[in-house]
């Protein structure tokens, strides 16, 4: 009886076996059954979303949920390394402040209200259309302009190439917006 109780005590096992205390002798029954959280997870190959170095990331996911994000050892740029920001990118996608609903603030309102996504899209389309109708200039001083001058865009350096492409295509080639800018300068 006492032997069995002692047997469950890691210090006893360590003294008995003369082991350093870093192997099985230090484990409880529960910890013996634990495996890495990545076990059995699917892997999506990804790229760190922070700076321009472009470190490779492995996104481990299971059942529609991300379980972990690690450095990709095969990336010729990062060879598995990530900096503090890249290493924290699991948290970037999973933290209490993360937005999941559309928030709307009406004129002169003191706070937000949540509105449905499709309704928000309709409202934005309506605003864009009305402003464009009000502020579209086909010609000015005898020169062709075809410009919607009442709407502007900011942002792009954190977005994908395909996203920047679609924004420029719709904003400029479609709507006639020229006031389009992002973080990139030089």
């Amino acid at each position, binding site marked *: 009886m006492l032997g069995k109780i002692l047997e469950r005590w890691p210090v006893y096992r360590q003294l008995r076996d003369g082991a350093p205390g870093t192997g099985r002798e230090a484990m409880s029954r529960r910890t013996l059954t634990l495996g890495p959280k990545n076990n059995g997870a699917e892997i*999506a190959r990804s*790229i760190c979303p922070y*700076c*321009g*170095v*472009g470190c490779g990331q492995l996104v481990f996911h299971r059942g529609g949920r991300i379980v972990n*994000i690690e450095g990709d050892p095969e*990336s010729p*740029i990062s060879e598995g*390394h*990530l900096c*503090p*920001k890249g290493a924290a990118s699991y*948290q970037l*996608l999973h933290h209490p*402040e*993360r*937005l*999941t*609903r*559309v*928030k709307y*603030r009406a004129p002169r*309102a003191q706070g*937000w209200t949540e509105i449905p996504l499709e309704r928000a899209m309709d409202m934005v*389309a309506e*605003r*864009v259309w009305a*402003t464009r109708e009000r502020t579209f200039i*086909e010609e*000015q001083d005898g*020169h*062709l*302009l*075809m*410009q919607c001058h*009442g709407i*502007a*865009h*900011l*942002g*792009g*350096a*954190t977005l994908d*190439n395909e*996203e920047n*492409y*679609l*924004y*420029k295509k719709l904003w400029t*080639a*479609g709507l006639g917006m*020229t*006031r*389009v*800018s*992002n*973080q*990139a*300068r030089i």
Partner: protein
Amino acid sequence: MPGLGTSFGRGGATTAQQDLQYADAVLIMGSSMAEQHPIGFRFVIKARERGATIIHVDPRFTRTSAMADVWIPLRPGSDIVLLGGLIRYVLENDRWFHDYVVHYTNAATILREDFKDTEDLDGVFSGWNEEQKAYAPDTWLYEGAPMSPAGSERHHHSKESGGHAKDRGGEAGQLGQFERDETLQHPRCVFQVLRRHFQRYTPEFVERWCGVPKDQFLRVADAFTSASGPDKTGAICYAVGWTQHSTGVQIIRSAAILQLLLGNIGRPGGGILALRGHASIQGSTDIPTLYDILPGYLPMPFAGKDGAAFEKYVSMHTTKKGLWASFDTYIVSLLKAYYGDGATKENDWGFNWLPRVNGDHSHFGYWLEMADGKLEGLFVMGQNPGVGAPNGRLQRTALAKLKWLVVRDLVETETASFWRDSPDVQRGDLDPSEIETEVFLFPAAGHAEKKGSFTNTQRLLQWHEKAVDPPGDARSEPWFIYHLGRRLKERARLAGGRCNEGLNALWWDYRTEGKQRDPSVEQVLQEINGWRTTDRHLLDTYTELKADGSTACGAWIYSGVYAGGINRAAKREPHGRYGHGWGFAWPSDRRVIYNRCSARPDGRPWSNRKALVWWDAEKREWTGHDVADFKNDKAPDYVPPDGATGDAALSGTAPFILHPDGVGWIWVASGLKDGPLPTHYEPLESPFTNPLYPGRSVNPAAKKLERPDNPYASSPDSRFPYVLTTYRLTEHHTAGGMTRTLSHLAELQPELFCELSPQLAVELAIRHGDWITVTTPRATVEARAMVTERVRPLMIDGQQVHYVGLPYHWGFRGLVKGDVVNDLLAISEEPNVRIMETKALLCNVRPGRRGDGAEPPWP
């Protein structure tokens, strides 16, 4: 990217991060690479382990300095003095690489007789128009280049136009004809003009105005320049420490000149690596969400100028020689990608549906319009100007003048919440009950919740796969733009009319997939890559593009990313020195561009040690460690036949294939708005007047945009005796929207601090850890004092100059909060790219917290 773009032809880093390990010296300046790009810095360490000398030039001692062999502090804003000093050192001590300079640069090209240098005109080049505050660059052209009729097309150098495109003024078309003196002795050849221009940048001058002791400067000059030549190379790394100045582009030009003189471009272990702060900031310039360019650095048309007619637009931007000779194929294919079947030869491919630019429509240009109540709506996607942009008070309060604002982000940023909890509301500058602005805050998808490609700092496109759906109502950008576009196109279809013709024609029939109906991102990348319009066959490279409407291509420089029908950005099979098979580097998977320079004119490597690509005389093709940035079967002895055009008009020894003369531009005859050569000017706020040209203290073409809500100190100004510089930390990302809500990172860097020297701390009776306030004419912020020897006063012109440093990540939201440092900055515009000056301005520092009346009043 005009600094690199005009010098070499393409606006991107010339090399790959991995290539740094082959350098014999690495000069890091305008960057704290170990802190801002820590994983890329591994390759600098590898170079050091192989015996390279690492040099760090920076006002502050950082972790980069700690890992360098040499650190030299210099006065913020004196970069061109130091780099000009290095250029002069190279010329006067014969450290330049003779054969490279003669064959691969325009050093031998002869300039016009009527050109006048800043040394002749006391601080301006010839062509300066004081009234318009702009240059007419005709006198900067090569001798023998024909002038355009009456110089009438030089409009793009007007103050409104942008500078991202390759050739704003259309002069480059004239540069295929020139005279050369390969002895470099002609008094008007570029080499001699350069020598005279930098004659006053002596080691003594550097010591006096940078605060770098002469012996230190000479040691660094010797270390870097002796690590270059046929069997050695040196690399230069920079970041926004160079770009965010009123002379930003010209600082990079100085580096380009230095590297061309030393023969370091296009060679292994050489080059200029522009270090970029966002995952796809290179991509967002290549495929721009910018006002002055279209994808692939094609210029946006300007009203009444090149925008008057398609024929005029094409003829102005087409060169006779080099890759821009095919300009018509790039623009017609883009218009086919935009407007599909609606783009026909008869309607000039829909060119007249494109809007014309008619002013400064950059961020700062239109933000001032917004502040003046001239804009109605704004979209902000993954950017946080309420914290990240200069003069934050103006940035935030201008938002209150909008009718509506749409923000898409992962969190509620300070930009989205300007109307409720900003310091402007607390101060009473804004009253929520009076703000009419409607605000829509959309939850965005994170990088692992959508697929797409980023283009990293070395022009490498890397695809990221989607792991899971975004949570709740969060959606990807393609979802948002596609479904918004669908709605707007439906309205346009019903409304009709001239203003909706383009929107109606816009090709928008993307496939949708998944339960959220995301548009197919692969299909978008295929459109970017280009296809034959007849059968949608994907193109292999931009040379297949046609100007007859038979090809569509969203960005000619990215063509090849879907070659053979395979998404090469998603490839994950790296091999060889540069990881070919992992991602896709534009152009055409070339990892070190201009690499024809790595071989002698006759096609053999300069040395075995520095072999990169070379001519295989048996197979009659270029071969080596990289894809040749050269027509693969163009022999070194190729001489263009008379009347040849395009790439065929460039000889077998012309490595800079975008340039009409095929060489690297020490001298930029076309494309820059503030001069063909760099010149030192003081920052817009400085304790000194320009020692070179007292009458021209600051870059004459830069814009201060001074107004009551964007005031400046005078130079010098007794109210603001100290120099201020701003910077970033490893643990936070730019304006903090992606880091301040993460507990792991917030804990690592919880609080705003201000670095100041022990000497200044004694003078002001400030102890380490005390609260202090920093004031400029724009704002006051409070921070904890970080008293450290990492910053130290410098002796400038016999006078002690103190400077302080502030990281700028904090704001009024997130787990860790702090004053917005960018409130201290002025909105200002460098002439070429309209970047603000953040690295050198004037401030005052006082002990104590921000309190009553300490802040400058808001107009």
